[in-house]
């Protein structure tokens, strides 16, 4: 899904609001929590010593409650807010070193932003709003309107080009907001709680649309959210923030299964584990594995099969299943699960097939099998 070149790297980033903010970086203050710091110095530390690296093509969710500094972090990526200390590097360019004109160019070419409040220009039509970024970049009128129309069509607003924002519903407005960003075709999308202001149903719809768009043409998306389910659904990786610090950064599964501390565990206790954990992590080794070659020779062995046996060839590739009654179901016909299937998606199949279902890796190797009992256990023990 993502290659490993870091497109955005955030290095020991600090943002402190207040007079003489550099005071917060002193040794003494670093050990305080945000409340103590505010009480002693009057400073408000929004982001404290954050180091992250975001790869090209991944959806990176920064999650945390309000006031955890996630929006400030996002605004330091495109230089809307300048850091107190540390550096953000985008494609090798340190943001704080850029001159105003270079920064404007970078924002035009490299990254577009989607806002929680939509931030559409009320006197511009949907089309003109979508064309805004291109207009600023100096693209000729005809061309920018054409691109804006394409972007609006992509988000499903091809018929509402000439309507003003106030004539559109919240969901439609945010589609315009998304189109305004997509029209620039930026390699990086910054989304600041983009779907938080929408109704749950519309939010779900928008999330799916974002994933579809991402599948069409992958971009680096930095997505700010306070909604855990949203973070888990969208994020390739999640950074969990609290009081300006990153508690843990990793895939949803890592955060769920291997929480770094009690706070992370606490955060994730309500998440629907079945939709995060994948079958490969809970699969058990099959009770009986038979090599394809042996199968042809030793038919006796096969009659002793208790429930089922998995058949593999000499390269450990999955070939099929031998049932209790001696019947062989080949890999092409029989039910099997791919490694990245979530437990939720596997439930129906596991419940309806009389024997444990094999789990197959992307290289066709047998990873293990999963039985209803195993599935239930995985939900209890985590």
């Amino acid at each position, binding site marked *: 899904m993502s290659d490993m070149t870091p497109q955005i790297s955030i290095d020991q980033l600090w943002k402190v609001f207040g007079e003489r903010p550099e005071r917060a970086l002193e040794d003494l203050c670093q050990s305080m929590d945000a409340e103590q710091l505010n009480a002693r110095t009057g400073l408000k530390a929004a982001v404290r010593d954050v180091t992250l690296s975001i790869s090209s093509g991944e959806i990176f969710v920064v999650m945390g409650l309000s006031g955890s500094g996630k929006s400030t972090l996002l605004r330091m990526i495109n230089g809307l807010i300048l850091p107190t200390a540390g550096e953000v590097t985008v494609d090798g360019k340190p943001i704080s070193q850029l001159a105003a004109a270079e920064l404007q160019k970078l924002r035009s070419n490299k990254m577009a932003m989607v*806002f929680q409040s939509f931030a559409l220009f009320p*006197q511009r039509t949907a089309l003109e709003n979508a064309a805004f970024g291109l207009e600023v970049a100096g693209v000729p*009128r005809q061309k920018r309107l054409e691109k804006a129309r394409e972007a609006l069509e992509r988000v499903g607003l091809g018929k509402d080009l000439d309507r003003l924002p106030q004539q559109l519903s919240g969901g439609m407005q945010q589609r315009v907001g998304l189109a305004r960003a997509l029209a620039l075709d930026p390699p990086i999308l910054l989304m600041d709680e983009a779907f938080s202001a929408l109704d749950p149903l519309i939010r779900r719809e928008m999330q799916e649309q974002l994933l579809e768009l991402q599948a069409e043409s992958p971009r680096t998306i930095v997505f700010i959210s306070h909604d855990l389910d949203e973070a888990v659904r969208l994020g390739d990786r999640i950074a969990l923030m609290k009081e300006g610090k990153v508690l843990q950064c990793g895939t949803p599964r890592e955060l769920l299964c291997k929480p770094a501390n009690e706070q992370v565990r606490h955060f994730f206790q309500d998440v629907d584990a079945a939709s995060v954990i994948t079958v490969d992590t809970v699969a058990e080794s099959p009770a009986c594995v038979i090599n394809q070659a042996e199968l042809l020779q030793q038919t006796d062995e096969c009659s002793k099969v208790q429930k089922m046996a998995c058949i593999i060839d000499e390269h450990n590739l999955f070939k099929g299943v031998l049932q209790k009654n001696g019947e062989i179901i080949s890999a092409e016909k029989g039910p099997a699960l791919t490694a990245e299937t979530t437990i939720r998606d596997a439930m129906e199949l596991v419940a309806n097939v009389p024997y444990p279902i094999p789990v197959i890796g992307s290289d066709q190797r047998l990873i293990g099998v999963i039985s209803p009992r195993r599935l239930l256990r995985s939900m209890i023990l985590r």
Partner: protein
Amino acid sequence: MDVIDQVFATVSTGPVGEGMSRCVEWLLNHAQPIFLVIDYAINGLAGAIEQILSVPAPWLLAPLIAVLAGWRVSLSFAILSLLGLNLVLFMGLWQPMISTLALVIAASLLALLIGIPIGIFSARRQHIWAITRPVLDLMQTMPAFVYLIPAVMFFGTGLVPSTIATLIFSMPPVVRLTYLGIRQVPVDLIEAGRAFGCSERQLLWKVQLPNALPTLMAGVNQTIMLALSMVVIASMIGGGGLGDVVLRGIQQLDVGLGFEGGLAVVILAVILDRLTQSLAASNFSRKSLPQRFKAFTNLWTSS
């Protein structure tokens, strides 16, 4: 004797006033060429506007204004303004009204030309606002008669000092409301502008001004109304027009004449107010307004 001396002493000029009159005196002696240029420019502008307004005869101009009123405001207002203008004509005050209108337009035009940029600069640079704000307070609270005196000293009596006094009196609202309009543009829109790569200049023309326009237009309306209210006072230094009629009414204790002049001012005021207010309407949902708005902003923003 002593008491009388003391009373006179309290009303005679103190050191502050002394300083001010020295300053005016110095300007009179050294800055005469500047006053000549200003005199020439304003005379030209106000004169030209009056000439243009006098070209169409009353029977043509009155219906034209009524048509404008019908288009911008409503049909009933068009009928009302036509009746009002006929009344002015019937009272024999058409020509003074045109003079007044010319003075108001010239002064407002200059006030907007100076005031809008000042408002923009003030909104963008807080330290400029720190200077502008007390000056505006001074302009608004200083009794208008006070700056009639230096105006007369610099420019004599007539159209030019009247225009300048009117200009000073009417400029504060447009500066204040331009400032307010720009400062009130929602933060997220400014952020969106910046996030999409706007330079400071693009931010002003593409984000701040279009969003501040309704408030700014309210400032324009207020400026025009204040200019009109200054007309009677300006007539004391030879501004002419309807103010002159009212002033003559006062001087001759002629209630009827004063009332006629006053009524004509009111009629003009109502028409100007409603017409300029229709420009300030911030209702985007009205069907033709977005297009007008678009046309207006496109004057600057089209590349």
